[in-house]
């Protein structure tokens, strides 16, 4: 049995007060083990984005326990969670979220700056990460000079340059056409299989979710279904 990387234990997330009170998460239990590739699905307002934010240590539960590598991450303060994110979590967003007018390599270096890695070492690691996503020759291009698919690859390079334990991807193919979507998904699958990188991905597209080996579906703040694809031997 592989040990769990993250665990949700009766997690509730409540927004607003009194009449306007909304339960975004209403007692969620699940865990993701190291090396898994999990798709999180559900209609808008189902709680999938809220749980993604908690998984990524951007947000904390109102009640219940969110364990990350055995630590009660829900109880950590802002700066401790920032450290946790910097050390163990990589993010890929729907809108790429690269810094404009900043080269691909500099974008990829960014998380290393906050780790205090020296400049020469940063550059070296950034180039390695860019090579892993197939963009070694685009290191000095700015986002404006790159296509959407390439920008998302740079974002993935930025997410993996720190060698994180977990990759959190929020609709990573949402802005891409089918062909590019599949390329990105191939890349993520490769990272998962070759490097054992745990991936948690929010998506609403079934064919994208199909790349994952496990799908957790949310509805009205609860886990509606949790299904694993059959292993193809």
């Amino acid at each position, binding site marked *: 049995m592989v040990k769990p990387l993250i665990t949700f234990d009766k997690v509730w997330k409540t927004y607003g007060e009194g009449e306007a009170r909304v339960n975004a998460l209403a007692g969620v239990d699940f865990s993701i083990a190291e090396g898994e590739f999990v798709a999180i699905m559900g209609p808008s307002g189902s709680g999938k984005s809220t749980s993604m934010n908690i998984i990524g240590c*951007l947000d904390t539960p109102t009640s219940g326990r969110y364990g990350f590598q055995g630590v009660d991450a829900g109880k950590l303060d802002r700066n401790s969670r920032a450290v946790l994110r910097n050390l163990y979590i990589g993010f890929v967003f729907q809108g790429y979220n*690269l810094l404009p007018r900043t080269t691909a390599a500099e974008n990829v270096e960014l998380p290393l700056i906050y780790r*205090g890695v020296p400049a020469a070492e940063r550059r070296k690691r950034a180039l390695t990460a860019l090579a892993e996503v197939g963009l070694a020759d685009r290191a000095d291009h700015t986002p404006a000079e790159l296509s959407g698919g390439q920008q998302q690859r740079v974002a993935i390079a930025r997410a993996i340059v720190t060698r994180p334990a977990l990759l959190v991807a929020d609709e990573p193919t949402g802005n891409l056409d089918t062909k590019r979507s599949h390329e990105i998904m191939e890349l993520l699958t490769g990272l998962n299989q070759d490097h054992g990188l745990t991936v948690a991905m929010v998506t609403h597209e079934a064919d994208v979710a199909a790349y994952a080996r496990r799908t957790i579906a949310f509805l009205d703040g609860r886990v509606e279904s949790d299904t694993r694809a059959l292993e193809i031997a």
Partner: protein
Amino acid sequence: MFWETFRLALLSIRRNVMRSFLTLLGIVIGVAAVIAMITIGSGTTERVKGDIAKLGSNLLVVRAARPDRSGTSSFTPKRLDEKDLAGLTNGLDNANAVSAASSQQVRVVYAAQNTAAEVTGTDTEYFIARDWDVPVGREFTDSEVRGGAPVCVIGETIRSLFFGAGDPTGQSIRVGKVSCKVIGVLESKGFSGFGQDQDNVVMMPLSAFQRRIAGDRDIDSIYVAALDGVATSEVQADIEQILRETRRIAPDGEDNFDVRDMTQIADAMASATTTMTGMLGAVAAVSLLVGGIGIMNIMLVSVTERTREIGIRLAIGAHERHILVQFLVEATVLSLIGGLIGIALGLALAGIASATLAIPFAPSLAVIALAVGFSAAIGMVFGFFPALRGARLDPIEALRHE
């Protein structure tokens, strides 16, 4: 890490050159105004001190005391007269020169030209006491002074206005209603620290001045030059003693005259210009404050504009501190650049001013250092609130920001 932040700040300033420049303008103008004011001001102070030093640090000036306007003064006002002069001339054994002088603004005419000049009636001792040479022609003689001869020595400004390149000696000019023969030209002294033309003058024998121009027998001032090596305070005490006798002041009576030495006058004037400089500097400093508010404004805009960038940075592991420092450094660098441009501009203005006003260019390293420190401080203080606002952003909200 610091270098990184610094580079980032420069990068961000460069991205919005126009906006950064407009933001800087407040600081630039503020610092330039402060630097220019203080540099010109201290140049003026130096000039005034220098002028008065040129008059001679061994020079004492005696004037009749003026009654206080409130009427509280207990002395009896009395003008200086020839008895006082004779008393000092005969009684002082430690004086190099004792000279009486009276002055008035009078219209001076030669051919079709006319101008208003400071006309002084005095004696031969005046040129010694004031250490003033007559390089062209000659000074008046003792007999001319005694007889009140209608002769005069003119300043350089009058000479060039009336005679151009020609020789003025022997020519007659009209001073007020009196025709007067020019016998010499005074050495040029240029403008005083107060912008007064010291060459726009005419000197004539005192008795001629009194009789034909002033129409009285008053003496405005008596100049006493102390002998070399004698303390002015010693001479001052002697003058006071002699004048109390000639002016018949009772032993318990108050002096009805003032004796000042030039260093006292120099100090008084220097302190006046210093106060003026300080006040102008303070007014200029207000514009620095306005510049600071400009920085705050633009940093708030910058934080709002870059909310998404802040969100990205927070998500990938930046601490609040990192964001705070990033924007704080940016504000400080911005303000510091403004400060440096302002210093250059201020010094340039002061340089032009001192060239045109003929005052010494006196940049103060302390004031420049202060301006650098002050502009950095303004960036930090006014950048703090926007930076804190950026640092406190919720990463989820920030990432959602369009």
